[in-house]
């Protein structure tokens, strides 16, 4: 091929195009000859390359896909595209690399200055060869042009829309044009509509760029377009870079020798000395290593420790007292094994292990990225799918297949009914729809934003399932592992049918398939119909009024807006009606649908992106899997999954490849994770990295044996649990001896079981179970959360029952405080391993948080109910419930002594509580519902009216409406009243609120507005104080006021919150329970009288002991 010099060089590296050459005449460029000889390749350049470059870019290795040995090879360039721009050394990647001394890499022999200069002269001369040929300059073709149109135009003139009838996705469709005729005239850029519109600044329309996430066409892009059209819009058949039948130059067989890239082979089970400890082969492998060090397994843990360990491991909950009794009663052999089987068949199992999997998937009920943090109303289906699949012990290969390519497993589009299988298949694909995703907003939905999301999804897949750090190869070939950059883009191309940055689906509506189980749809439709009827019912009287007006004034029926202006009374009614309609609409439920990932059949081409930059396209690549995991000579083959399918079938082929028994990573990575959750750390400590920078397995033979066994056993995870948990290794004690500390400080040899702390979810679930407040209802939309003004986030529940944490909404912007404190990971995009911290806020939360405190009360009530009034029985029972065992004798005597002392102290405190009401100050005494403070509350104002009379009226204010001035007004008392009649607890405003800090409560304003709505029903009896009492008293000293506050504090059911005297002086107890005076004046005197029930002190004391148990290390840690 002759060098023609006609067009620009497209140096991919910086995406820069040398425009100046566009004007150059189409013949051999004038070359500047420096020195006496014009260098030619064979004579001057080859020797330089041979000395410095062939080691990596020659016969044996072709790093970055570059071979420097011949003209043909030079023409092919590297992953980054062309490396030589004839005539333009400064635009040539090759020259840049040696000139900037990036190449040869550090530590290798660099080129001398004269060699660099020779290279420069050679390229300047057009890169000639002895036979007179040149390295041809790159010829502009569709791969230079169409990507520009995809970036700038196809959103409106492409697959999803063809505005003006125009589709610019292909040369043919551009020629075909739209309503205004062909969009280009070959050879005549100046006559081409496409360019005309761009030049005129009409396209893309500058004022609506953001709506469609498009940037204007850049200057050099216009020039390229023009040049391409001028040249007749040439197309070239560019073969994509895919695995061929020839050996892969980038990944060698030597690379494949690394342990984790070899398929696992089951080693023979070793023979060991301590045969008596061998229950199954796991023990033999572990003992072998221990015996090498002259050690052995630790003694077996006692039965109840084992029960607690196993129950937490498999269900994430403590064993119930009944389970403990049952287990103790079973004295037949293999009682433990039977217990494991029972635990494995518990529905709680899937909730526990589902959580582990959701970490890997990066599960979230919201999109993140933007302040609104859009809720993913249907994401829970995927969560439920995971739980159900694990409970059914769905074989892991099938489990993966469904999650990666569920849409290609069965022809859902043509199915007559949505079978359970199809439903599961589609829901399962939610796996790769979990990354944070803000592309629902135009301004954060540009192509680079989309590429980030695709990258996140691929990261989820490769880290969680494949144990590879393939993400590194997004910008450059992996520095440590044999993962060339093209392998990243080949994988991306497998997913292109589903994740196409050039043809993006909006998360708001584009992520759903319109299917749902029939019964759900029925229920939803009925509900929706009911709401619509309710709305109609509200609207009807309005319409009637409109008609009345028309009749009365003999006019045409005015529309509602007009009538509002005409009749104030109507405006009021209309406003009330609108409010009601809003309230009805708030009860609307999202339509059941499936949030899924599916192949859309027309993937756009994928290019290596140089340095990951979306505007720097290198070589075209096709679909493929990481070469190091194959023999490198087998092309990746795929076909549409069923006859007539629009789907490419790429992901299905990928999933099949991934779950082949011979895949070196899939089974190992999974087995290793299961191991980690049982034994504290993985056999390969770096769970997500099995590459060269990852850890080596501590027990490689064991890992392989397990992996092979796992596959042979039908990829059954439950059988794997059973194998591991029935081993002697698992049944060891967790005690560390001095010998352990010396020999095996980090327990890499498994010389004992690790002591483990509960995860946040396990802790919360356990607290609920122990308190008898755990609602075991599974599945369905998540239960809500509520963020308090001060930042505390709690699970919302009107009942005193709460569901397991996995069923609580998981938003990115608000996380349950208890989980936050106990190391709930941020999904960025997923969590491959949780970290553990030990910090004061954990202690503060367990000690001081109201809900934990309240749970301790339920716990105490339960103990009292089940054990009666005897302190001995109570302590026994409390231990049995919380720890699944009896207290030790020391614990027993300690708990009993504390119980006694606490009872005494409480009795002492309680008897002194009295209230004397002596004058006209208004005192509210409320029943404390600690958990409910701030929840479901409505800000309203209790007022006695200006006349100071006895009647109390209730004024309602939305939080935002209540100004500081109103707050300070005389005769006002601020209160918070629960809107629910059932609770009927009246509470006054929380301490610390004043006009200045008012806004800090705005966060929950919307919730309050809703509450306000429902409160309207109470209007009939506004003067009635729902609960508690109210009294008047006369002024006294400030000291007395403090006394009162103290007295009220003694009884947790009584709290003095706010006092107002006759003059409107307000007194509020501030956080430190001193009295904060808002206005000086007369101070009332109050003394509280309060009788306490006889056994109240003992009950209080028991609650303290229960609270202490919930705070104890014995509770939080699992031996």
């Amino acid at each position, binding site marked *: 091929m002759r060098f023609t010099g006609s067009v620009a060089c497209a140096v991919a590296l910086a995406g820069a195009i040398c425009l100046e050459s566009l004007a150059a005449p189409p013949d051999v460029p004038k070359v500047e000859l420096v020195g006496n000889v014009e260098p030619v390749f064979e004579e001057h350049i080859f020797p330089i390359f041979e000395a410095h470059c062939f080691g990596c870019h020659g016969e044996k290795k072709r790093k970055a896909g570059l071979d420097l040995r011949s003209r043909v090879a030079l023409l092919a360039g590297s992953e980054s595209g062309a490396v030589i721009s004839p005539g333009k050394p400064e635009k040539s990647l090759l020259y840049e690399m040696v000139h900037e001394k990036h190449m040869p890499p550090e530590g290798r022999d660099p080129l001398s200055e004269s060699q660099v200069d020779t290279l420069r002269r050679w390229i300047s001369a057009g890169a000639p060869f002895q036979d007179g040929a040149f390295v041809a300059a790159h010829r502009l073709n569709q791969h230079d042009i169409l990507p520009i149109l995809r970036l700038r135009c196809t959103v409106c003139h492409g697959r999803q829309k063809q505005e003006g009838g125009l589709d610019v996705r292909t040369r043919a469709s551009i020629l075909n044009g739209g309503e205004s005729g062909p969009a280009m005239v070959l050879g005549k850029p100046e006559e081409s509509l496409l360019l005309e519109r761009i030049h005129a600044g009409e396209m893309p329309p*500058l*004022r609506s760029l953001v709506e469609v996430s498009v940037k*204007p066409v850049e200057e050099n892009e216009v020039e390229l377009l023009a040049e391409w059209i001028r040249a007749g819009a040439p197309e070239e058949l560019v073969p994509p870079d895919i695995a061929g039948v020839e050996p892969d130059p980038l990944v060698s067989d030597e690379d494949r020798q690394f342990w984790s890239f070899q398929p696992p082979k089951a080693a023979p089970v070793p023979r060991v000395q301590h045969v008596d400890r061998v229950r199954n082969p796991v023990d033999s492998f572990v003992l072998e290593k221990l015996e090498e060090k002259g050690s052995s397994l630790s003694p077996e843990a006692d039965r109840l420790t084992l029960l607690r360990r196993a129950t937490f491991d498999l269900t994430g909950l403590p064993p119930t007292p009944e389970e403990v009794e049952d287990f103790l009663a079973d004295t037949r052999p293999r009682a433990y094994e039977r217990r494991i089987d029972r635990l494995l068949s518990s529905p709680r199992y899937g909730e526990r292990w589902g959580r582990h999997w959701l970490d890997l998937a990066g599960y979230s009920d919201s999109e993140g*990225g933007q*302040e609104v943090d859009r809720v993913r109303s249907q994401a829970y289906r995927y969560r439920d799918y995971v739980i159900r699949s694990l409970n059914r012990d769905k074989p892991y290969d099938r489990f993966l297949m469904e999650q990666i390519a569920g849409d290609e497993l069965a022809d859902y589009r043509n199915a007559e009914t949505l079978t359970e299988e199809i439903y599961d298949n589609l829901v399962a694909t939610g796996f790769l729809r979990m990354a*944070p995703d*803000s592309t629902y907003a135009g*301004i*954060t939905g540009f192509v680079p934003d989309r590429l*980030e999301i695709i990258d996140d999804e691929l990261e989820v897949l490769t880290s969680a399932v494949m144990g590879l*750090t393939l*993400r*590194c190869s997004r910008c450059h070939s992996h520095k440590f592992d044999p993962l060339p950059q093209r392998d990243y883009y080949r994988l991306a191309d497998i997913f292109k049918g589903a994740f196409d940055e050039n043809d993006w689906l909006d998360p708001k509506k584009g992520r759903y398939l319109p299917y749902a189980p029939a019964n759900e749809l029925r229920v939803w439709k009925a509900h929706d119909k009911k709401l619509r009827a309710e709305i109609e019912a509200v609207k009807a009287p309005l319409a009637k009024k409109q008609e009345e007006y028309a009749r009365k004034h003999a006019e045409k029926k005015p529309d509602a807006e007009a009538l509002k202006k005409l009749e104030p009374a109507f405006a009021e009614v209309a406003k009330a009606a609108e409010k009601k309609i809003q309230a009805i609409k708030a009860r609307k439920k999202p339509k059941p649908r499936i949030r899924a990932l599916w192949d859309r059949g027309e993937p756009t081409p994928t290019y290596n992106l140089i340095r990951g930059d979306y505007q720097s396209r290198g070589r075209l690549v096709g679909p493929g899997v990481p070469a190091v995991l194959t023999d490198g000579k087998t092309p990746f083959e795929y076909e549409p999954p069923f006859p007539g399918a629009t789907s490419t079938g790429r992901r299905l082929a990928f999933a099949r490849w991934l779950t082949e028994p011979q895949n070196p990573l899939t089974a190992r990575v999974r087995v290793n994770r299961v191991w980690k959750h049982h034994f504290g750390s993985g056999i390969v*400590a*770096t769970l997500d990295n099995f590459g060269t*920078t*990852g*850890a080596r397995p501590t027990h490689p033979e064991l890992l392989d044996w397990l992996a092979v066994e796992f596959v042979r056993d039908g990829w059954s995870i439950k059988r794997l649990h059973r194998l591991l948990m029935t081993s002697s290794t698992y049944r060891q004690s967790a005690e560390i*001896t001095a010998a352990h500390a010396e020999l095996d*400080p980090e327990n*890499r040899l498994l010389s004992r079981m690790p*002591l483990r702390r509960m995860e946040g979810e396990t802790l919360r679930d356990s607290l609920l179970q122990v308190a008898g407040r755990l609602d075991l209802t599974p599945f369905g939309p998540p239960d809500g959360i509520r963020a308090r003004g*001060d*930042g505390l986030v709690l699970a919302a529940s009107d009942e005193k029952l709460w569901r397991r944490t996995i069923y609580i909404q998981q938003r990115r*912007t*608000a996380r349950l*405080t208890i989980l936050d*404190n106990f*190391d709930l990971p*941020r999904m960025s*995009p997923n969590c491959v391993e949780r970290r*553990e*911290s*030990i910090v*004061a806020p954990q*202690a*503060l939360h367990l000690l*001081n*948080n*109201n809900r934990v405190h309240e749970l301790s009360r339920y716990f105490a009530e339960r103990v009292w109910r089940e054990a009666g009034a005897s302190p001995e029985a109570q302590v026994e029972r409390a231990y049995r419930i919380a720890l699944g065992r009896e207290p030790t004798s020391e*614990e027993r005597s300690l*708990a009993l002594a*504390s119980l006694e002392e606490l009872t005494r*102290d*409480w009795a002492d*405190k309680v008897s002194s509580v009295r209230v004397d009401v002596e004058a006209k100050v208004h005192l509210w005494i409320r029943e404390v519902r*600690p958990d409910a403070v701030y929840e479901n509350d409505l800000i309203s104002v209790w007022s006695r009216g200006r006349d100071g009379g006895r009647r109390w009226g209730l004024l309602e204010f939305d939080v935002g409406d209540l100004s500081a001035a109103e707050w300070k007004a005389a005769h006002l008392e601020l209160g918070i009243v629960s809107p629910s009649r059932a609770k009927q607890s009246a509470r006054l405003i929380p301490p*610390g609120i004043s006009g200045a*800090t008012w806004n*800090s409560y*705005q966060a929950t304003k919307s919730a309050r507005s809703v509450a306000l709505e429902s409160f309207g029903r109470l209007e009939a009896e506004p003067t009635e104080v729902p609960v508690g009492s109210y009294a008047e008293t006369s002024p006294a000293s400030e000291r007395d006021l403090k006394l009162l506050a103290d007295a*009220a504090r003694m*009884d*947790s059911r009584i709290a003095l919150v706010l006092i107002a005297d006759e003059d409107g002086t307000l007194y509020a107890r501030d956080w*430190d329970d001193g009295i904060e005076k808002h206005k000086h004046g007369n101070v009332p005197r109050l003394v509280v009288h309060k009788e306490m029930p006889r056994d109240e002190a003992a009950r209080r004391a028991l609650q303290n002991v229960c609270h*202490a148990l919930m*705070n*104890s*290390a*014995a509770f939080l840690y699992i031996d």
Partner: protein
Amino acid sequence: MALIPKVSPQENYPSNETFDRRNFFQYVSGGVYAAALTSLLGRDLFSGDDTGANASPSRRVHDLEPRSPHFEPRAKSIIHLVQNGGPSQMDLFDPKPELDKNHGKSFFEKIAGEVERPNKAGALMRCPFKFAQHGSSGMWVSEILPELAKCVDDITLIRSMQTTNLTHEPALFKIHSGQTLPGLPTLGAWVSYGLGSVNRDLPAYVVLDDPRGLPINGTQNWQSGFLPPVYQGTRFRSRGSPLLDLKPEFEEPRSITGLERDLISRLDRLHQRKRLLQPELGARIASYELAARMQLAASDALDLAQEKPQTREMYGVGKESCDSYARRCLLARRLVERGVRFVQIFLDGQPWDNHGDLARGLKKCAARTDQPIAVLLRDLKRRGLLDSTLVVWGGEFGRLPISEGVNGRDHNKNAMVTWMAGGGVKAGLTYGATNEVAFAAVENKITVQDWHATILHLLGLDHERLFYERNGLREKLTGVLEARVVKEILV
């Protein structure tokens, strides 16, 4: 009257001959399992020999123990005054006569791709305020910042910072975490991971958020991302209880609370006695003791009543326009005095986001912050704290030279203004420049990662060596982007 007994831990918990609890860390570091714990603690920070064939699990128990920086630090603490919303560079610190000259001329077509709301974009718009030079440095400051204008000889003004995204959420993520995506550790989290806390009774990283409400992105502005949550920012409120769960939310006589704490402590020691070599258990007992101390320390640090009335007044406490900001600036000083590493002060929502009625909006923001900030600088200086405290001011991006609607300005990622003071930066320096209409930085450009690298550098941390192992990658604040310590602004 505190709900928690004001007694020392010594009194609060019965003594036990096995442990001297007050010196727990001393105990473990010299104790029998010192080796195990040190290896747990020291692993994934700084150590360069952890990869390769013998890489060990990077799991460790994370805490806030003080750690040495990489090199001698210039600053021990940072106060970051976060100006959320995107303060307008050409109306505050970067006067542009060209804008006056070309007021009303069309400019949109040249920058169409850089406008968030193109349908509202107008023509070039001049600054509504007067500028003057101040101090011996002659730094230009707009008339709406009269108090800061008196402090210019203590600050380095950077006019040439740029970021990569022109939308609040991603730009805020970028400013805080170096990347535009959610879920990543913030600068403060990196600093507390890198350096730990000097004051063991207080968190290393404290956030003073606005009582009026959270900023955009909410608590994600101070998250720890993939770093363990122990490194995330702790919100201290300026009124009410300073810290979530700091004090019981329920009513209980303090003697009862004392008895219960005592029971917990004894139970834990019994539990631990059988597991003497488990380092976590000792650390957990220590965390309960720290919790008790924190209750006192946090209340003390945040008790503004301890300040002289003149001091409070000087900051602007009680002044309607700036009371809350003044309180927080004063609190920030009290916190850095006590060794807190990183203090951030936020504004609610994004007051600097002046899409409409720019002049009024800017004046309001200035009135909220100008006096407290200037007094904070002076107060730190007077107390000799400015040398060891780096004060950083800035938002997430700048604004456009064209109008939005009638009299607002839209977002601009190509030029933003920020300043630093104290802690090793030059005084009275104006660094970098924008083009003639302040649309884009053109001279001495600083990227967000340069800015991060420079701040870390001032704290004695090398951004290349401060990493955390994750997914086989060494994650860094500056990521894979090239970052440069801006040496020119350092003393």
